[in-house]
Structures are given as structure tokens and as C-alpha cells.
């Protein structure tokens, strides 16, 4: 049951992912991204990480994507004009890179399949305790470094926006 759900939502995530790139209207593309995030959240839950599943929804769907959509709506973007035709060399290089990525992921998935983790559904434990313990012991330094980086980014964004109306 859990396995069938996992593959169904994985396939749905792929469909939404393709739509993000394929749809010309920026609003539709952003909404497809919300779909991808929703599917990923379900996958996290099925893999026994409900905390990650919820945080995925709170941070990405509830905040980041809302801001992106907000900007799209403020600018009143309706439809993206057709991009100019790419140079044949660009097309060839792009195709090569895509094939390379595909190969990379196929090989990566091949090694992952051998270390499959049983799907627990995560009913009893939310994983918050384990995650908290790890973040405040083994990964304390990277965790603090990341928060410092975010603070720097916030200050930088504030400065960039402020310069306009000094």
C-alpha cells in the first residue's frame, strides 16, 4: 500500500516537475511547483520523516512560493513571450548535459535501491526529537554557520532594497 502510494506520488511529482519547465504562463509554472512540493511532502511522510514533510509544506508551499506568486501578481505577468531560437551549439550542449544528468541519476538510483529503507509511515514518532538532538550536537557548527549565512543574506537583501530610496 505504502509502496504503491510512494510510486504514484513520485510519478505525479515528475509530471508537475515537467509542467514547471513546459508551461509558458509564469503563474501556472509556479502553481506546478506547488504541486511538486506537495508530492515531495507526501514522499517524505511515506519515508518516515513527517517533520520534514510538514516543514516542506510550511516553508516552501506556505512561504516561498506564496512570495513568488505575490511578485507574479504584483507585476501582472500574463504570459511569457516565446524565447528566441537557440543556437545549434547551445542545443547540442544542453542535450548532452541532460543526458549526463540522466545517467548520473540512473546510476545514483541504482546504488540507492540496494540500501532501501523500509517505509514506516511515521505515525508514532515525528522525528523532531532525533533531528533536534543531531542539530544541537553533531551538526551544531554547520547549523550555526547556515543560520549566520541566512542572516547575512537577509541583511544584504535589506541593504539592496534600501539603496533605492535613500
Amino acid at each position, binding site marked *: 500500500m505504502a509502496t504503491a502510494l510512494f510510486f504514484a506520488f513520485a510519478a505525479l511529482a515528475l509530471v508537475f516537475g515537467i509542467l514547471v519547465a513546459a508551461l509558458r504562463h509564469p503563474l501556472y509554472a509556479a502553481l506546478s511547483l506547488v504541486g511538486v512540493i506537495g508530492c515531495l511532502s507526501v514522499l517524505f511522510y511515506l519515508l518516515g520523516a513527517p517533520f520534514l514533510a*510538514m516543514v516542506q*509544506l510550511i516553508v516552501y508551499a*506556505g*512561504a516561498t512560493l506564496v512570495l513568488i506568486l505575490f511578485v507574479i*501578481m504584483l507585476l501582472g505577468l500574463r504570459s511569457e513571450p516565446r524565447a528566441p531560437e537557440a543556437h545549434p551549439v547551445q542545443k547540442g550542449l544542453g542535450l548532452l548535459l541532460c543526458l549526463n544528468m540522466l545517467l548520473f541519476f540512473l546510476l545514483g538510483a541504482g546504488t540507492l535501491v540496494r540500501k532501501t529503507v523500509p517505509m514506516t509511515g511515521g505515525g508514532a*514518532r515525528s522525528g523532531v526529537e532525533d533531528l533536534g538532538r543531531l542539530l544541537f550536537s553533531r551538526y551544531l557548527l554547520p547549523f550555526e554557520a547556515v543560520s549566520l549565512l541566512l542572516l547575512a543574506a537577509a541583511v544584504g537583501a535589506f541593504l539592496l532594497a534600501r539603496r533605492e530610496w535613500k
Partner: protein
Amino acid sequence: MSPLLLALAVTLVKIAVVLGAVMTAVAMMALIERRFAGLIQDRPGPNRVGPFGLLQPVADGLKFLFKEEVIPDEADKWIYLLAPLLAFVPAMAFFAVIPMGTPFTVFGIVVEPLIAPSSFGVLYILALSGLSVYGVFLAGYASGSKYPLLGGLRATAQMVAYEIPMAMALLAVVYAARSLDFTVIADAQAGTWFGVVPKWFVLPQIIGFFVFWVAILAECKRLPFDLPEAEAELVVGFHTEYSAMKFAMFFMGEYAHMIAASAIVTLLYFGGWHLPFAVPGGNLGALIAFAAFAAKTAFFLWLFIWIRWTLPRYRYDQLIRLGWTVLTPLAFLNLLITLFTCRAPGVN
């Protein structure tokens, strides 16, 4: 019957019962709101249909069903049709993790009055609260008209801004109860101080409760924060172009959101189903617990209505300033006080 099938059947019955109860409550709220408005404004309110106007929601529902479905020419058709669903479904989904009392026994089966027991209910509520922006936002965008667009923009900025103080106030409760599970949070408030004062979180976290309540008024887009639908400026804001059942979806979503919010306030700050005195065990105790929970929830629903018909509307810049410069610092202050007054987790 195998245990798995039995569990499935019990869950399906619970979902049916909870959905039915919430939809009935939504219909009743629509009537109570108007009757109460009448009371405050010294007029009768709707009292023609049935005794005390009790059948008014039925009449309204029938009217919504038989009205013509209008889709504006300028509308973005698919998103226009999707938006009412996105407003309604998250509001109903709140009830999956809201426990409504203590376990009781039916036909020898112990039933917990909760659809999905989960160790991360608080996070689930936050996630749904974040997702409930989409219905309003997309309705504003897809209508292809300027008033809904302005209403949608206002609603989005308001809901994103007030989510921060709301989450910070929640964090203090989670710290005090040391759990993200609503049942554990409610049980952490059992018992009394000095034998009379209930150990509800509202007493040590009075600031947190104030912040949370104001943030919830803004999240539910209720007066004094109903700027997204300020009728003097925006007709009715994001749902101006919606009619018939699609309008009813927004309407029901708003009331379901209010009911869920009242239940959550009860669970977080007013002890859920706990009373400051001992109650008997067994099914009678479960019944008393449910009655206590329902009464507390009903009180907050009434408070919603009372505030709506008492206070005037804020101006939009005042609303945003209140959120960022008053409520957010207050929520942090509450969190600091809680951190210093509660024992650290694991030091029992």
C-alpha cells in the same frame, strides 16, 4: 472482522461524523452570526424561516444550489474554478488532527475522538494555515477584475505577516507542553493550582494568548481585520466575482476556519476538555469532557462574532504595522518569559 478493516471502518465513521458535525456547525454559525448581529444592533435578525429562524441555513443552501453559475469572460477559467476548493478543503482538513475529548467505548471498541492521532499535529496546523492562503490569492488573481485582485493581494500580505506572531506564540506553548501533539498539550494543562485555579496555559502565557488570538482574527480575515473584503472599498474583495455554490464554498471555508481556530485556541490555552475539578471515568466522563470542549469552543466562536459587531475596521497600513511592530515583538517576549519560567525539557 480483521483488525485492519475494523480500524478502517472506525476511521471512516469518524470522518463522516466529524464532517457532518462541522458542516452543521457551519450552517448554525451562519444563522447565529446574523441573529447575534440583530441582537447587538437592536433588531430581530432573520426569524421568518422556521421557529427562531432555525431553517434559514436550509433556505440559504437551497438558494445557493439553484442560482446560476456565472464565470466571468475575463476570468482564468481553471484557476477560477480551483480557488473555492482550495479555500474550502484546507479549512476542513484542520479537523483531522483536532482531538475532541477523552476515549470512550462503543460496542466494546475503544474510540478516540480524533481522526488521525499524530505526534506533529501543531506542525500540520501550521502547514494547512500556510496553504489556506492559496484559495484567497488565486481567487483574487483568476477573477480578472481589479477589486478581487486588490483583495487577494491584501489577504496574502496580511496572512503571511500574521503567520509569524502566530507561530511564535505556538512555539511557547509547544515548549511549555514539550510536545507537538494536541492531546499531550491538552493533558499538560490538567489539574489545578491551589485546588481552584485551573492549570491552563492562558494564565502563565497571557501575552501569548493575546498575540495568538489577534493573529487568528487576521488569519480568518475577520473584523477588525477583514481588509481583504472591506465592502466600502473593494465590493467584497477576492470573492466579488463568485456566485452561487462557488461563493458558498468560500463562505463555508471561512466558518470552518473559524470553528477550527476556536477549537485550537481551546486546546492550546484553555486546557482542551480539562475542567478544574474531577470528573467521573468511563463513557460519562468522556461525555462531560466532550461537552466541556464543545462549550469552550462555542465561547470562542461567540467571541469572534461579538468582536465583529463591536469593533470598527482597521486601516490597511495600521494592520500591517500592528502585525510586524507590535505582535511579533510581543510574541518573542512571551517566548522569552516561557523559556525562563518553564523547566527545560528533560529536567523533570
